[in-house]
């Protein structure tokens, strides 16, 4: 991704605001948001970007399993 592409914007339905691609691709401790494919697949060649910039293990870490729901996260936090 070039710097120009990195600053492309999208409306994030989770945050409720306009954000740049650079946030989507690094917000998870340097790894991409797990929604990056769904959100960007109609905007750019996101698959090529992921293949180029992350290892398979990193991508597996991001995308494996299901995201936790709000309730799941809260119950988990209470228990911890």
């Amino acid at each position, binding site marked *: 991704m070039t710097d120009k592409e990195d600053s*492309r*914007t*999208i*409306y*994030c*339905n*989770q*945050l*409720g*605001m*306009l*954000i740049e691609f650079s*946030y989507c691709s*690094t*917000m*998870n401790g340097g790894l991409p*948001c*797990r*929604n990056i*494919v*769904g*959100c960007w*697949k*109609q*905007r*750019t*060649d*996101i*698959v*090529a970007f*992921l*293949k180029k910039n992350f290892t*398979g*293990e990193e*991508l*597996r*870490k*991001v*995308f*494996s*399993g*299901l*995201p*936790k*729901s*709000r*309730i*799941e*996260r*809260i*119950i*988990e*936090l*209470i*228990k911890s």
Partner: protein
Amino acid sequence: MKRRIDLNEKDIPKQWYNIQADMPNPIPPPLNPATGQPITPDMLTPIFTMNIIEQEVSTERWIDIPEEVIEKYLIWRPTPLYRAHFLEKFLGTPARIYFKNEGVSPPGSHKPNTAIAQAYFNKVSGIKRLATETGAGQWGSALSFACNQFGIECKVYMVRISYNQKPYRRVLMETWGAKCVPSPSPDTNAGRKFFEQNPEHPGSLGIAISEAVEDGATSKDSKYSIGSVVNHVLLHQTVVGLEAYKQLDMIGEYPDILIGCAGGGSNFAGLFLPFARDKIHGKEMKIIACEPASCPTMTKGPYVYDFGDTAETTPLFAMHSLGHKFVPAPIHAGGLRYHGMSPILSRLLMDNLIEARAYGQLETFKAGITFARTEGFVPAPETNHAIACVIEEAKKSKEEGKEKVILMNWSGHGIIDLAAYDAYLSGKLEDYVLPDDEIQELIKDLGKFPKP
């Protein structure tokens, strides 16, 4: 022909409607993965007061709205119901389109319907302070307003990227006296580990939730407050549908189609639940939840008891998902979802009482612009999903030559979201269609790696 249908103050609903009393199939309770047994209400006491937990699990059909809450609701309620004549004319549809304008509240959305209630129930339980998280600030500003009304403190953990780039809602929160901090913050254990690594960490909603829950559970005289998804939030939002029911009744109308946007599901549920009761008892109507095509929680995926992770350590909740055991490869449709829909909506969807549709980003902004250029009001970007569906149904009504009555929840205005409209209008949200086979190729490649 009446353009605006108003209720008198004295006609504001005095009770919330609890769909759990009428659901054909009850919501499966959340389960403890260790025991398989339901999680008990007392497990929620660290973060919610008992009066709120009682509402969370109640199966009473009607729950009284306290006078003190009604008094605050009257600041902006009853909200007007509008007939969208100009949109109808623009579309040339025989459909009669009505929208319930929840954008007239002080924070500009439906959110204070539950924020006011939650602030009140915490106040009477002796709580002096509420903590919550917010993305771009819609929920945070609603809770700040509500806490201010009842004289309790409010601490909002706002995702740092929003805090830095979208200051107006933060200013709103501070105007109402709340303390708003960027997340990750040094104020909690959950935030500190990220903050110390990088003080400019952009944050995420997940980190902000962790901070707010920790704060609410561990700080003196404090609790946590949530703006969507859970049962008591949906209950409080039914004031929207109960008013709309009366307003339509005043002009002899009844909806054939109810439409709302659904992220966590609360504004949509608030509108349709009082009507869904009629549907359960045999009345015919179509109820449509609209969600973003990029994260289609409801339009894809079976209803299953599912673990939140592959290690099977988190509690089980009945939600829409593909289920992690069905995920053959890391990047799979199920792994792209927020997995965050309300359990009540999930159950009603499975019982075919509601249906779901997904809309792409450009289509929704186009719909929002159409609405703004006909009806005048600028919708919140989330609301645009519902408007896209309204337009679709109105066009179908035209094709079929049927005079359908369409009711939509206009959940909030977009005056603080104009940057998103600017991006759309200046072509910055252009599409590039990527063939699905390229995604499949990536899935195939990743499948070679061992599972964690």
